[in-house]
Every structure is written in C-alpha cells, then in structure tokens.
C-alpha cells in the first residue's frame, strides 16, 4: 500500500483510491466517501470524463454564442444584427452512418453544430430602433425564465433633468424582457426611459431567487422587482429618494393640506432616503468612538463635517443581494462610474437592510476588516439562489483549499503596507459580485483540476486568444495532463497580425464546451466543439 504524503493518519487504514474509471465504479459499489461528501465523491468521476476531443472550425450559423443556462437545458444565442434571440437545446452527439462506423474519427457529416444542438426557436426581441444587449442575460432556474435586455443608443452628454445625476450618460429606452425559455413566449416587459443601467456583464442587475435588483445610475434608485411564477414582473419597492415603498404616498398625503402655501415641496433640498440613513450611520459611528465631549466635537469636525459634501456626493455604483433582505451596495464618485479604470477610485461598501431600512455596516474599499470577512466567509458574498444546485460547487477561496492558497500567496507578496492596501482594494474590487457571471462547470472545480487562471477562468469574459493549448491537469496525484483545448483553427492562424479574442462556454455538467474565437475584423468567428468522444 503506497501512502501519499498529504494523507491524514486516518487514511492509512483506507485502501488507496484508484483513478481508473473501472476501478472507481467497482470502488463505488463497495464503499462510499465520508458522510456528507457523496456529491464531491461522485464528482471525482469528472477526472475520468473530460472534453479531450476537439472538432475544429465547426460548420455553424454565424451568430453570437452567449451562454449555457446554469441547468444545462438551453444554449442562448443572439443573431449578428442584435435583433433575434435563438435558443438551442444541447443534445449529446448523435448521428448515424451506413458505413465506416468503425474508424476512429468521426464522419464529416457528424462534425456539425446541428449534431450537438437542436434549435428550439428564434424570436425577435428588438424593434426598429433598439438592439439586444448581448452582454446581458439572467436565468431563473426554478421556473426556467430568461431575462433579456434591449436598449437604444447611449447619449453621453445628457442633460441632468428631473433630479438625474450629472455626468452619467443616458439611454432613451431600456427594456427588460421576461421570457419563458421553454417556448420563447415573452411573458412581461419592463421599461426604463431616459435612464442608465449598466448592462455589461449583468453589472447593474442582480437576481436572487425571484427578486431582481436593478440599479438606475442616472436616478440613483435601486428598483426591487419580483418575478412571479405567473410570469409577471412586479414592482416591490424602490430605494433611493425614499426607503419604504409607501414613503412618497405618505408624504404627499400628509403635505396636501399645506398646498395653499403656494410652493410645493421640492425633493432636491433634502437628503435622499438612502443618504440620510448612510450619513446618520456614519455620524453615529464617529459619535460613539469618543466619549469625551470636547474631543468628540474635534473628531466629528475632522472626520465627518469636513467630508460631509463628499459623502453627499457619493453615488450608488453597484448592488448585490446578500440574502432576501440585505443588499451590499457600493458607493463611489460619479467619475468612477464613467471611467473604465475603477480600481483607482476610492469607494465604499454599505450593507443595507431593505426591511428595516437600516444601514448595517459601512466600509471603505481598503478596509482590512471587510477583506478578512471576505477571505473567511467569501461564499456568503456569493449569494446564489436556493435552486441552483451546481452553483454550490463553484470554487472560491472560502470553499477550496487551492483557491485559498493562491489568494494567501498573493497576499503575502504584498507585504508592505501600501502594497497591502492596494491588494485589499484589488480583491474587494470584485464586490459586489456580478450576477451569474461564473460557469459552474466541474472542469473549473479547483479541487479536481488545475489550470492557468491567466488564460482561462470560470468568469464569463472575453480574453486575448491564447497561442498555446490551455491545459487542464489533475489536481490530485498523479497530477498529469488530462485534457487541453485551443480556440481557433487547429493549425493556428495564418494571419498573426490581427488581434483575436476568444471566449469559452462550458456546459454546466456535461463534458462539452464551445470555444469561440473572434478577430476584430469582420470575419465570422471560429467555433470549436470540445467534448468527450
């Protein structure tokens, strides 16, 4: 019996786990993993079943390949002209042929997109003057609804009318479409006029269970909507100028009697509901820091009143749910929203309880305390809906030893105090999380596979196309290369001058992935299918 160096003393008494798939099936019949680890134990079979075969340059429709839904039921695509939604059902490769079935290679007829995917429908979402936002898509696993967005062109120098924030661009109309993915029927729509919602990578919208939080950057309002099983989008509340859903009604019904005063109340002289909560939380915190009256006044003068206007000028950048009641809100300056390089801007995080309308916590983006919370309890920030089974296995530094080691080693490299503060800012820049931006594929499970995170990651992003194959090695012994994949033509590209970008779409549980390579020129993209033959 050979012992591995990382085995615990208890493992001495267990037979060594064999990695051959036949042995594993036999082992499965006679033993099981430690209690509570059965899913993890079963997932090890993925070490044997990998997408190690590639069909290069698959004959496929020229369209935008967006995403597999997290339950693996649908492949979402958009037409090149950003008008239509095209939905496919992933089917496992099936083909029939009369002769030559015994050869190792697939017949050319099988090497088609249609052998793997069957089109369910194609529906038009956009109208004459708006387009589908190809970077936006959310999926509710429980009732298989999809949320899509269409928008008109962006106006950069929009006038800040009606209480809008100056410096934030405007979009004439943004429409969210709620679709039943089973048959492509549009169930409901919700439009925002002359507003700005950050739709890229789902940044401005967060879905949690049946609750949707939409951040209007222009009007500084968090719209909370509920997706009913009946297929309706219902306004629950909006947080911004007011905190409770009936605050405005309460105010108008209470001040109506004073209308004879002539001047109707203008909202802009008062602090908004969320700012009042934020400022009073900060004020209370500093007040309680010091008990001596005179030093307290000094402290407040320096830490609160001096920066009062800066706090008032903060705007809501991004929001995520932590649970059904708590929102994690990122505040920053207007410049930070428009500029691409967000890391350099100072920003703040607040935890807000929608029910009690209280700020629960407030941190700066370089706060060690928040970083430590994030390091230890990272999964609490990954608020996933209850129904998404596979998402529980997305690797993070809180649930995965290897991811944690990576984070710690990066942290130790940043040893000086200024580097450490930069490191904290960099890590916290991922908060609040973008909704549904990580692939739950087991091939990204860091307890199973090791891969170069610079060239591939579960994050849903385009990257510069790699020249080399991307390698996936076993995390456990014998740590050998299990499979490799490469976007683009098999022989490499003839033209090395044009910059190419690639993206990977992994099926959530099948050994199936698509790689799409695009060049900046107008050539159609190259699609490779990676699967287990």
């Amino acid at each position, binding site marked *: 019996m050979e012992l591995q160096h990382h085995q615990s003393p208890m493992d001495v008494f267990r037979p060594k786990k064999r990695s051959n798939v036949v042995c594993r099936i036999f082992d499965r019949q006679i033993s099981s993993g430690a209690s509570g680890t059965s899913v993890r134990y079963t997932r090890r079979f993925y070490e044997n079943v990998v997408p190690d075969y590639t069909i290069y340059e698959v004959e496929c429709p020229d369209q935008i390949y967006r995403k597999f839904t997290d339950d693996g039921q649908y492949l979402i695509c958009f037409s090149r002209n950003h008008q239509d939604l095209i939905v496919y059902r992933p089917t496992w490769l099936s083909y029939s042929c009369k002769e030559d079935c015994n050869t190792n290679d697939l017949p050319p007829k099988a090497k088609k997109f249609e052998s793997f995917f069957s089109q369910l429908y194609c529906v038009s979402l956009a109208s004459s003057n708006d387009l589908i936002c190809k970077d936006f898509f959310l999926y509710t696993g429980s009732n298989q609804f999809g949320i899509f967005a269409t928008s008109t062109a962006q106006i950069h120098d929009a006038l800040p009318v009606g209480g809008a924030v100056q410096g934030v661009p405007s979009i004439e109309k943004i429409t969210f479409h709620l679709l039943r993915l089973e048959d492509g029927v549009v169930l409901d729509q919700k439009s925002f006029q002359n507003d700005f919602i950050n739709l890229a990578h789902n940044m401005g919208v967060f879905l949690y269970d049946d609750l949707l939080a939409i951040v209007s950057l222009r009007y500084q309002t968090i719209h909370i909507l509920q997706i009913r099983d009946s297929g309706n989008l219902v306004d629950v509340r909006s947080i911004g100028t007011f905190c409770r859903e009936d605050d405005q009604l309460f105010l108008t019904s209470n001040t109506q009697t004073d209308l004879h005063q002539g001047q109707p109340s203008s909202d802009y002289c008062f602090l908004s509901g969320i700012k009042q909560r934020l400022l009073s939380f900060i004020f209370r915190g500093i007040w309680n820091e010091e008990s001596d009256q005179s030093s307290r006044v000094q402290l407040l003068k320096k830490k609160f009143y001096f920066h*009062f206007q800066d706090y008032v000028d903060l705007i809501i950048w991004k929001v995520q749910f932590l649970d059904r009641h708590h929102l994690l809100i990122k505040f920053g300056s207007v410049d930070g929203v428009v500029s691409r390089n967000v890391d350099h801007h*100072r920003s703040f995080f607040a935890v807000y309880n929608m029910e009690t309308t209280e700020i629960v916590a407030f*941190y700066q983006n370089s706060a060690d305390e928040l970083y430590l919370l994030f390091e230890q309890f990272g999964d609490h920030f990954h608020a996933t809906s209850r129904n998404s089974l596979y998402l529980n296995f997305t690797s993070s530094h809180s649930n995965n030893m290897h991811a944690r080691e990576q984070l710690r080693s990066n942290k130790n490299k940043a040893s000086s105090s200024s580097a450490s503060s930069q490191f904290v800012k960099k890590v916290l820049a991922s908060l609040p999380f973008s909704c549904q931006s990580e692939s739950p594929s087991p091939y990204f499970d860091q307890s199973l596979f090791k891969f170069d995170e610079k060239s591939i990651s579960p994050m849903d992003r385009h990257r510069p196309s790699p020249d080399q194959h991307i390698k996936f090695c076993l995390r456990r012994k014998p740590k050998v290369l299990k499979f490799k994949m490469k976007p683009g033509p098999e022989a490499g590209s003839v033209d090395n001058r044009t910059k190419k970008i690639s993206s990977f779409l992994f099926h959530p549980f099948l050994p199936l992935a698509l790689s799409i390579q695009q060049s900046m020129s107008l050539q159609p993209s190259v699609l490779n299918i990676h699967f287990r033959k």
Partner: protein
Amino acid sequence: MTTPSAPSLASSSRWASTTSVSSSGKRIHREMVELNIDPPPDCCAGPKGDNLYHWIATVFGPPGTPYHGGIYFLDITFPSDYPFKPPKVVFTTRIYHCNVDSNGNLSLEMLKDSWSPALTITKLLLAIRSIFTRPDPYNPLVPSIARLYLEDKAKYDELASEWTLRFAK
C-alpha cells in the same frame, strides 16, 4: 465600527478660504473654538469642507419627544456681515414640525427680529435643539401642523414620530 476616512479632499475652490482675515471669519473661528471647548449636549456642528461660512449641524431627536431616535442634519449659512446679520438655517432631513416648512426652512424668532450680535453658534444650537422639545405654534410656518399641535397633541405626536421613523433614521 471602523470609521472610513473621507472620500477625497474637499475641493477648496468651491468656497471661500479659511485664511480669510475678515472680521466675520475671525468671529466664526472664535465661536468654533468656543464650541469645541464646551459643546452643548446631543448636538454638534462643524464647517463643511474648509468653508467657515457654511456649516452642518447635527441634532439627535431628544428623548421624550416624537423626534426621538431621529438624527437631523441642518445647513447653516453665515452671511459675510455676520454677526450683524443672522445665519440662515435649513433642515436637510425631513421633519414634521410647525416651525419648519416643506422645503426645510426653519423659522425662529431668534434668527429674525430678535437676532443680536451677542448670540453665538453654541446658543444657536441650543435654540435649534429647543424647538424639538418646545415647538412654537403661535408663530408657525405651517399653520395646519400648529393647529394640530394645539388641538390634538396625541395625533401630532403620532404623525411626527411616523415622520421620524420614515425620514430621519
């Protein structure tokens, strides 16, 4: 709680500089020192950014009043001929009060005809704080609230505390 440091240095170009040697500036500065040495209870104030003429005041809603539990922010603007002219005080937190109009303007006898150059920021803060405990319904800005205060105090208290809960937390 860890107090985060401020977002950015307040821009100095927006307001007059602290180094102003005018007599009103000197006077405000002296009153600031006075306030720092002997601050009144449950309220506080300080210059916004580096502008001595624009202050923010904060008042805790006093216990025993329907304003209890609320934190009220006020803008105080000093005229350039202070202390010969009174400062202007505006609530930036919504409040249900017969001496505060629907735009937040505060009406105090002290800030009008009874203003005297002998009054200071500390005394002003005390006066602001006293309107929470003793509203003046006989010189109201909002007559309907003043009427309710005189006729049905219980209903007034109920409404005022509802406002506190909704808008001043």
